[in-house]
C-alpha cells in the first residue's frame, strides 16, 4: 500500500503527535468517566453504554498491543513489582470508593447496614486488586521479555 506523503517537517510532526497524545488521554479518561457515571451512578442498562465500553476497550487493547510490540511500558515508571502494587492499590482503591458510594446511593437497604456495605466493598477491592496486579504482572513480564528481544535484535554483537 502506498503511503500518503507527509507535508510536515519533523518539528511539526512531533508537535502533532503531542497534540494527538494529549487529546487521546483526555478522550480516554472522559470516556471512562462517562461509562462509570452511566453504569454505576445512573444504573443505566448495558445497551446504553455498551458501545462506549467497546470503543474504550478497543483503545485499551490498541495501547497494550502497541506498547508490547515496541517494548514500551510507561512514561513515568518501570515494570517492577513495586509499581504493579502501587497501580493496583490506586486503581482498585479508586474503584472501591466509587463502588461504595454508588452502592450506598442505589441500594437503600445497605444504608442501614454499613457493615455489609463495607464487607462488599472490601471484597470488590480485593478481587479487583488481584485482577489488576495479575494483569500488570503478566503484561509487565511480556514487555520486559520483548525489550530484551529488541535489545538483542539491535545489539552490536556479530551474528
Amino acid at each position: 500500500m502506498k503511503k500518503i506523503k507527509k507535508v510536515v517537517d519533523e518539528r511539526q510532526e512531533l508537535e502533532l503527535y503531542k497534540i494527538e497524545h494529549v487529546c487521546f488521554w483526555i478522550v480516554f479518561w472522559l470516556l471512562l468517566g462517562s461509562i462509570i457515571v452511566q453504569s454505576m451512578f445512573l444504573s443505566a442498562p448495558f445497551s446504553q453504554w455498551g458501545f462506549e465500553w467497546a470503543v474504550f476497550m478497543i483503545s485499551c487493547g490498541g495501547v497494550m498491543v502497541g506498547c508490547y510490540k515496541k517494548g514500551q511500558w510507561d512514561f513515568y515508571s518501570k515494570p517492577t513489582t513495586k509499581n504493579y502494587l502501587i497501580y493496583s492499590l490506586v486503581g482498585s482503591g479508586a474503584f472501591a470508593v466509587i463502588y461504595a458510594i454508588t452502592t450506598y446511593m442505589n441500594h437503600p437497604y445497605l444504608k442501614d447496614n454499613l457493615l455489609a456495605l463495607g464487607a462488599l466493598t472490601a471484597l470488590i477491592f480485593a478481587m479487583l486488586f488481584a485482577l489488576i496486579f495479575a494483569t500488570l504482572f503478566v503484561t509487565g513480564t511480556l514487555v520486559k521479555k520483548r525489550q530484551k528481544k529488541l535489545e538483542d535484535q539491535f545489539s552490536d554483537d556479530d551474528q
Partner: protein
Amino acid sequence: MKNIKLKVARAEKDISQEELAKRVGVTRQTIGMIETGKFNPSLQLCIAICKALGKTLNDLFWEDSDNEKN
C-alpha cells in the same frame, strides 16, 4: 540553549531563515526555533543544515562544556 553559531553561519552566507528552510525541507518556524533553542533537531536535519551552510556538525552544533549552561 540558543544556537548562535547557526545564526552566524547563516548570516555569513547571506541566507535568510526562509531560504535555509527551503533548502533543507522544513518550515521557517523550525529554523527559527532551532536558532532560539526551542527545538532540538534530529541528526538527519542537523546534517542537512550543515550541508546547506557548508559547515560541519562541530562548527554548528558542538558546544564547549563552558557554554552548555547558557
